[in-house]
């Protein structure tokens, strides 16, 4: 009997993620940012996204673009739990020879769709990805990007959301993690911005897995879809 990693990776559950995150040290600064995304990431990778370690290069895979690259421990933990990267890499987090930086790099980690860190790049890249898939006749794959409510300050998001809403880019999905960290807030709510631009939008409890799942999988014919996942306020 072998001790293949592949037989072990399938055993990880949501309860195991804090332990996996604990293997990574040295990025305490972004701790709150990392845990704010944990539930949404888990539900996406566990129940929504049609991508596996074997299909990271498949043209018809779903794409998940982590735009908010700050505090990627939750992301790496989920990728490790799902077998995209070996758990053994987690303790090296941030080290010189580690592929796991404090911001992810798509060229270093299989399954990571974009390198991020500078805010406001994921949504425009997701728009282009959705257009590119459509232009190649790949109308089934979904494109997801995860942003934060403070990241939403960046004007590039607003260029992308206005355009995507206007052209009805319905394979495009945003999950916005709202931990009320935007300095000037979003009076009237984040979902209202998406709705005003023609998107389908839902706001849910970002710790409620069933609510997240239902919001993620809600039908939105002819329109892109945004899910605002509210979590406890930063600090």
């Amino acid at each position, binding site marked *: 009997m072998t001790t293949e990693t592949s037989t072990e990776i399938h055993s990880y559950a949501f309860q195991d993620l804090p332990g996996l995150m604990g293997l990574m040290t040295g990025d305490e600064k972004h701790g709150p940012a990392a845990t704010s995304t944990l539930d949404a990431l888990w539900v996406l990778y566990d129940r929504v996204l049609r991508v596996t370690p074997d299909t990271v290069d498949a*043209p018809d895979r779903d*794409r998940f673009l982590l735009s908010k690259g700050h505090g990627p421990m939750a992301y790496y933990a989920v990728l490790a739990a799902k077998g995209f990267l070996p758990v053994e890499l987690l303790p090296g987090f941030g080290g010189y020879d580690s592929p796991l930086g404090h911001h992810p*790099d*798509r*060229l270093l980690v299989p399954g990571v*769709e*974009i*390198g991020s860190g*500078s805010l*406001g*790049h994921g*949504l*425009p*890249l*997701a*728009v*282009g*990805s*959705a*257009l*590119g*898939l*459509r*232009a*190649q006749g*790949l109308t089934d794959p979904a494109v997801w990007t995860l942003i934060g409510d403070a990241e939403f300050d960046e*004007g*590039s998001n607003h*260029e*992308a959301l*206005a*355009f995507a809403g206007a052209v009805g880019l319905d394979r495009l999905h945003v999950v916005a993690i709202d931990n009320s960290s935007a300095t000037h807030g979003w009076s009237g709510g984040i979902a209202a911005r998406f709705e005003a631009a023609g998107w389908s939008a839902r706001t849910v409890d970002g710790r409620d897995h069933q609510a997240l799942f239902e919001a993620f999988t809600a039908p939105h014919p002819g329109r892109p879809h945004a899910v605002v996942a509210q979590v406890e306020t930063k600090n």
Partner: protein
Amino acid sequence: METMRERFVTVTAELLEQDPRTAVVLADIGAAGFTEVARRHPDRVVNVGIREQLLIGTAAGLALTGMRPIAHTFASFLVERPFEQVKLDLGHQGVGAVLVSAMGSYDWPAGGRTHMSPGDVALLDTLPGWTVHVPGHADEADALLRHAVADGDSNVYVRLSAHQNAAAQPVEPGRFLTVRHGAGAVVLAVGPMLDAVLAATEGLDVTVLYAASVRPFDRAALRSALGARADVVLVEPYLAGTSNNEAHEALADLPHRVLGLGVPREEHRHYGSMDEHLAAYGLDATGLRARITGFLG
């Protein structure tokens, strides 16, 4: 005379018909030229509106899915305004696009500083891996555009201008051409500067090289063109001195001198015409001759 931009529209429309990987991304500027081809290929002609961060992000996203995007607008809005998108969405993601600019440094002086981008090539020099073509004629633009789109998934900048030479040169991407042989210094004319350089060096015993591609910089051609003394004059239609370091590196093991001529760094607060600006920058034949002969002594 057909402009480079007109040719860009014709060539791009043709490439869109031929190659399903190609897509053109626009930010309103130039969109009218693509109305007809957009009807036939609505998924591969994308106009994002006046949103230049999205212009580059969209092009990069298309590339992430395996497409070969061509993005076009004025140089100021293609390179300078969304520079971080150029750096991160293309280079850092490891994907490529063809960026085709218009208006360059001085094409519309009446439009003022907001529509002048003399620093575009110098900015791209801060990033790894960019190929830069600076055609001097619509026919050259035609050949270089086709080459750029077919050039794998690399990042290529094609700098189109309303300033052109009377005749096209038989350009080869990445290579300098010898346009005139002499025994003395080497004068390298980049793209639209060739006609003025030829007029300025009339009767001088210099070699005139022509570059419609400046990155990579054809160091071998520069070295093999050297005369008795390694004196080099660079005449570029963008920021003066942009290629000085390339010349210095090509000649690093030789005692040499380099004079870099081009658009001055100082803001030139006058409107008027392209010819008036070229004269004011010392880039007309008279100004060039005075500075070249002064340098060569």
